């Protein structure tokens, strides 16, 4: 990260008490890291064909459902399914896909938008999607139109091995290819942060060649380990979900769109004895502390709406230096406060925020009160404002009726 930050901003950083909180709000004056987190994308890939790989499609569709539920809209999800299990002739339940033998949830409902299906799911197309090098005829819905403010979730499942992932029973994606694609994405400012989640055998080996900063990777198994399916649906006659994905889903089922469980709580939720493999995450390229990154940063699309005075705030910010930075910091503090209020029942998440640090920051803040008050009113006094408004309406109503009579 240091290489991307010019000396001036480095000076600012040193002044600030909490570097990590600072980065969480994604304000940075350096040219590369300047973008804040503005949007979320998800690329979900099932790479294997054939009926007996039913579970891979179920995995991907379950993840699709989850990220959609957590707020990523369909237009920002690239769903790649290498085979069509729902309409496979062997499917006992035509046009339905389940990820559990209780068959409560049909993953292949009315609202599934598959962007790449069947033989379109190739290594070439996958790399084109990541790097954005499409032919001109490719429609927008099939492109990953992310920018430097994007958080991207890349989920892949299929059959893998040592440093490769099999596509379509005929090609392979090697770890070098993946690392190269990610590097290109970085160069082209196609993401701010990237979470790669892989559920294959020896998944961890796929991350070996990654070098680009801002990339976080988690795989279902270490080198030499297999990833196993979770259970068999004896009605459909195939395994319907993999262990790693099953427990990932189990984690997310407890969350709603406003939860801010951290990535570390997700990562620590994997129990090797239940997984029958060791989930491995690589975070040396990722600078934020995982305890402070909510999972919804990748798996959801919860945006902060920040009011700005000027229509084109970004320009003015670039001109003024230090003051703006500190103001943003102040916003971040409030952001955290509100989080604490909103928090529902995830008690274990509270330790994320260090009270001393907060105190120190508040002491250091020198922002103009007007901005603060506006924001405060907007965000928290909406209810009371509404109530006052309603009360004020009553005499108006009385007067108007009286006039009519």
């Amino acid at each position, binding site marked *: 990260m240091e290489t991307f930050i010019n000396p001036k901003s480095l000076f600012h950083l040193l002044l600030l008490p909490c570097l990590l909180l600072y980065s969480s709000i994604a304000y940075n004056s350096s040219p590369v890291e300047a973008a804040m987190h503005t949007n979320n994308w998800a690329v979900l890939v099932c790479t294997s064909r*054939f009926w007996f790989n039913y579970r891979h499609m179920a995995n991907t569709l379950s993840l699709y459902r989850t990220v959609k539920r957590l707020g990523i809209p369909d237009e920002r999800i690239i769903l790649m399914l290498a085979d069509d299990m729902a309409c*496979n*002739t062997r499917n006992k339940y035509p046009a339905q896909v389940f990820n559990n033998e209780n068959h409560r949830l049909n993953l292949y409902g009315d609202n599934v938008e598959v962007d790449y299906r069947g033989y379109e799911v190739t290594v070439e197309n996958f790399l084109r999607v990541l790097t954005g090098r499409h032919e001109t005829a490719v429609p927008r819905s099939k492109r990953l139109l992310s920018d430097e403010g994007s958080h991207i979730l890349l989920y892949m499942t299929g059959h893998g091995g040592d440093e490769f992932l099999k596509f379509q029973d005929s090609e392979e994606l090697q770890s070098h290819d993946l690392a190269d694609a990610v590097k290109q994405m970085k160069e082209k400012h196609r993401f701010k942060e990237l979470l790669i989640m892989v559920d294959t055998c020896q998944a961890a080996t796929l991350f070996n060649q990654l070098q680009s900063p801002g990339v976080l990777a988690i795989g279902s198994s270490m080198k030499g380990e297999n990833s196993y399916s979770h259970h068999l649906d004896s009605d459909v*006659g195939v395994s319907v979900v993999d262990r790693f994905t099953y427990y990932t889903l189990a984690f997310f089922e407890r969350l709603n769109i406003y939860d801010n469980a951290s990535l570390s709580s997700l990562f620590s939720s994997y129990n090797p004895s239940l997984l029958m493999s060791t989930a491995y995450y690589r975070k040396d390229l990722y600078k934020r502390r995982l305890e402070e990154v909510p999972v919804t940063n990748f798996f959801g699309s919860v945006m902060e709406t920040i009011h700005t005075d000027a229509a084109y705030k970004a320009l003015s910010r670039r001109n003024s230096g230090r003051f703006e930075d500190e103001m943003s910091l102040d916003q971040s503090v409030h952001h955290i406060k509100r989080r604490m209020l909103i928090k529902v029942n995830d008690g274990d998440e509270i330790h994320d925020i260090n009270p001393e640090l907060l105190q120190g920051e508040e002491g250091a803040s020198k922002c103009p009160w007007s901005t603060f008050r506006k924001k405060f009113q907007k965000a928290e006094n909406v209810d009371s404002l509404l109530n006052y408004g309603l009360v004020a309406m009553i005499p108006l109503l009385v007067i108007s009726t009286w006039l009519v009579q």
Partner: protein
Amino acid sequence: MAETKEKSLSDEKPKPRVRPIVRLGIFLISHSFHVSVVCCTAGVLALFLLPVLAKNTYISENALMPGSASPMLSNQHVSDGNRLVKDLTNPNSKSSETGIESHKIIAQYMLDLGAEVSFHKFHPQMNQFHPLHFFSSPDSGKIQENYSCSSYGINTVGIIRAPHGDGKEAIVLVTPYNALKSGFGEALSLGIAYSVFSLLTQVTWLAKDIIWLVADSQYGEYAAVAAWLREYQTPKFSSLSTPNAEMCPDVNNLFELKGHSISGSKFSNSFRRAGTMASALVLKVRDQNEQFEDTISIYAEASNGQMPNLDLINVVNYLAVHRQGLRVNVEKLWSLLNSSWLKSLGEIFESLAKVAKSLYPKWKFGIPATEYVEGTATLASSLYYQALGVPTGPHGAFRDYQVDAITLEISPKFSLDKVWRNDILLRGGRLIEGVIRSVNNLLEKFHQSFFLYLLTSPSKFVSVGVYMIAFALLIAPLPMVAASLYVDANSSSNCSKGDSSTPSAITDTDEHSIAIRSWRWLNSAKLVFIVHLWGAIVSLLPYFISQIPDCSPTTSFMIWVLLSILSLLTLNSVLASPLACAKATQEKEWALVKSVTISSVFIGLGLMSVINFATAEIGALLMVPMCLLAQPLKLDVRAGTLRSFCRMICNLVLGHIAFPPAAFFLLKGMLDGFGNANVGDFWMWVESLWAWNSATYLFIVEVTYIFSHG
């Protein structure tokens, strides 16, 4: 040749470097006697070790997933099947002379389920002798001229189309049924098939069409299935079938009647087809039974030792043992089970394994002696049926079209109460359902697992890589002995020359004579060729003999023997006359003749092992010792020593044993006792072999030849 030259060169002047492989070759050739003894013993030993080296079977194809789906066959389907069994065993249905009634019943039941039904009328093909037929494609769909209306069979075929499938593939279920004298077992097998069929009409998961073939087995099970397959695989685009039907009013009547009674249904007079066959199951239920528990026997050997893919057997075995609790059997040579020498051999192996394990705990190759005996018995029968080349059931017809098929014979512990019958219907039906569902999951043809294997038990097999070792060891001495004989023959004549003339006086004439000598083996090759020719003639003779009408097996055998001798004499007088004088002048030529013989046997066995391993293995067991020991009787008699006498006895005994009729009688005598052996039996046996166009024929040719030579 190259090696001999090399050797002579090294004799002349001590060359500093000879390539190691050449040196090794020279060493082996010069010690060919010891090498051949060691190799032969090792080969036989390796053959006996095969049951120990057998590996556990495993399901190789991912897509199969046997047993992953719970069976859907319910009591409702079982009672459907029971209804059919009752209707078929009902004495009223049997009243008809031709058994058409029961076919109508079956067809009606199929139609009620909503399946497509058609009758297939066929004329049984008489056994025809096609020499070397196995090299050609299975059949060209010849139409026989001598149809008679009295002899025809009717196969009833029901087809379920896969509801979402593309109709390009099919799974075949075959139940042989003889309408004229059907036992309860046959009716029961139809009941099982029907209950599965009625289930499969309802399910949504079919990807392949299901064909249920009720094969009319009054002319043999194989004939009916083969006739239907021939029709299926070779579509006729002319209207040849209609005049045939018109010729026989009876059949026409049957079709008409069906067509009228159920107009608008899915019955059709024309031949119905589904997609390419993925695999086929032949289901039988044995009538009488001596077992104490429900067992299921798997028959897999098709013509010429071809086997279905091992995965198919694995699936059946897995489902039968782990899901339905049936005991699985494969064919065994029962006489071997009680043999004490095998038992003691097994014990030796067991104790050896124990010693090995105590030395190094990771070595675990021992199996208990009883298991060894059973494994050997199974292996022997596996070898025997593969070598014989005669299919062990109707599934053999499918293998000719590269369709993997096996016969399942359920032998239930018999009792006649209804609970038992329902139980066997349920378990048998669920087994069939499971296999069909598993094959239904298949995306490609069976290809993952082995095609070349020998079974030592339903869950253990010896793969080609292992059993070839035994064979290779057995035939390895042949080229060495041939080479050493050749070298000896050449060098001995060289020496005799060297005595008379000094090495310095090598003239052009000498070189010429050397050149002649080096081509001397052509003479021997000619002799060998003539004897081979005679063998071929002898093996072709039965075809002509079988054309003679009204011949009892014994007389035709006699004719065969007479004709064979006659042909030998003719050949000898016509072709071998110059050879005979050569023989008279040079008695020492026998070594050269033997060398050529051995090399031809080596080539023959090598080729045969590619065509049919089991035949080659058994052939090698008989022929290799004979080839190695063979020596003119005259020489032995003249030598008069004990050693040569022993060798002579060995030769005579081996020669007789390996002569096919003698071998046959010995085997039969060992198995059944000598009392009922008969010359005619051999004729019948041979006749059965042509019927299957067996490659064994080639083997007989060779053995015959060897004998005549010895």
